[in-house]
């Protein structure tokens, strides 16, 4: 039985990404071991420390950055995280200086907002109603 244990986000700088994803978004570092020229670096939600890990993966492959830039150009998030209350989370993150390209938006069954992770990605936060 296969189990989903990890998902990735491609970042331009692992140290900067770790700072943003822990200090701003509030994730907790789980694994940090050297892996060649980079690190195997994962974070988890404090609410689910044994849950799915987010791998902060270097975007060094030549195809990665043009892809990321094209997504940002159209405002498309690279991935999505769940929150309890999108409006409250937007306020909290703005207080920490996080930049939003889409304010909290009620789309019917779901409320979403989109932020800039400062590592080359837009990230959607969402709460089902």
């Amino acid at each position, binding site marked *: 039985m296969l189990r989903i244990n990890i998902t990735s986000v491609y970042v331009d700088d692992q140290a900067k990404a770790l700072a943003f994803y822990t200090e701003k978004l509030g994730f907790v570092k789980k694994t940090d071991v050297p892996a060649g020229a980079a690190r195997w670096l994962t974070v988890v939600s404090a609410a689910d420390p044994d849950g799915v890990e987010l791998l902060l993966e270097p975007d060094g492959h030549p195809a990665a950055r043009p892809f990321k*830039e094209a997504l*940002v*150009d*159209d*405002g*498309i*998030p690279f991935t999505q995280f769940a929150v309890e209350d999108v409006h409250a989370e937007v306020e909290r993150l703005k207080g920490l200086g996080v930049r939003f*390209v*889409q*304010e909290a*938006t009620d*789309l*019917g*069954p*779901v409320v*979403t907002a*989109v932020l800039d992770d400062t590592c080359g990605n*837009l990230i959607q936060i969402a709460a089902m109603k």
Partner: protein
Amino acid sequence: MDAEPDLFKALGDATRRIILDELVDRDGQTLFEICGRLTMKHGLTSSRQAISQHLAVLEQAGLVHVRRQGRYKFHHIDTGPLRAIAERWPTD
């Protein structure tokens, strides 16, 4: 000779009218946000490419302006061209 063919063409499509409605609701949206609103709030199944083309038509008519801000691209409504309609066929 019709003075504003682009304007009337732009307004003649239901999806484009909904895009303008959504920009009135909140001005300055990314393409992704516009697509999300059309899909989730209006049940439209237009592809992102189709919505891009609708935005290009609205831009051509001067009803939408694209503002680049660093790596971001936001779409803003401009109702200015609609004055031509009121001037041509005054209401009261």
